[in-house]
């Protein structure tokens, strides 16, 4: 039983419990939106923003330190660079296998699935790249904006 005086606004039991329940489902939904973007509305941007929003929700409910336990600043920095690197890497790989830049059907020489199937799969690969980039950049923007650049405390 805690004293009422140490009960601050950021430590509400209902908010903490509901966020703890909601965050895994939000992340699964974000992954679903990324991988199911071929058949329904969705894709890299939307899924990446939903994944980033789950970390922002953790930071809102438990404080910025807790969200940085799940995604540390170094992991975030790696993801920042990994997203555009996946995208450009797929394009360069296409060029290396004899096609044009970002012409995914050239990757058929790597694993023979058929050029049309490779175009579908190449779109999936770059959606993953976009999703990773958008997720980490949104979390980085939130950390910086809400703590004034120190990335240690704040909202």
């Amino acid at each position, binding site marked *: 039983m805690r004293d009422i005086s140490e009960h601050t606004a950021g430590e509400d039991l209902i908010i903490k419990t509901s966020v703890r329940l909601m965050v895994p489902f939000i992340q699964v939904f974000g992954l679903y939106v990324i991988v199911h973007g071929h*058949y*329904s*509305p969705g894709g890299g*941007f939307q899924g990446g923003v939903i994944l980033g929003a789950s970390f922002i929700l953790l930071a809102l409910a438990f404080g910025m330190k807790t969200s940085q336990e799940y995604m540390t600043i170094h992991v975030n920095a790696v993801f920042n660079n990994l997203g555009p690197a996946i995208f450009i890497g797929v394009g360069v790989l296409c060029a290396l296998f004899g096609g044009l830049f970002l012409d995914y059907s050239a990757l058929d020489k790597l694993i023979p699935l058929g050029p049309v199937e490779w175009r579908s799969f190449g779109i999936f690969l770059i959606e993953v790249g976009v999703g990773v980039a*958008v997720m980490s*950049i949104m979390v980085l*923007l939130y950390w*910086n*904006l809400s703590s*004034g*650049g120190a990335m240690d405390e704040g909202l």
Partner: protein
Amino acid sequence: METIIGEVVAKYNYWIYVVLMMIGFYAMIGKRNLIKKLIGMNIFQTSIILFFVSTGVKKGGGIPIVDKYQALAGHVEAASTVNPLPHVLMLTAIVVGVSVTGVALAVLQRIYQEYGTLEEDEILEKLQR
């Protein structure tokens, strides 16, 4: 008379987009608070995106997700699906817009640390001293 009603029914959407753009434009050049200017910029941007998306609308057209097997058999007509090209262009425009908003808010925080206010006239006063 009937031509005027036909004109109104055909064009009222465009007129409301122009009204939204005017609201955003007035907030950008008339308001003195910098965050108000930023909200005005977002309204301006949204009205332009709205205009672009509305150029792709076809009356009676479905959403741009087609049935795979019907499309492979060649049964999809262009007139029964809305134009997907403006959607693609505006999808990137929205995400670039939120990046621009983030950078602008970061610059606003630096301005507040430096001058202690977000009002344009007070900042100009402090700059001249």
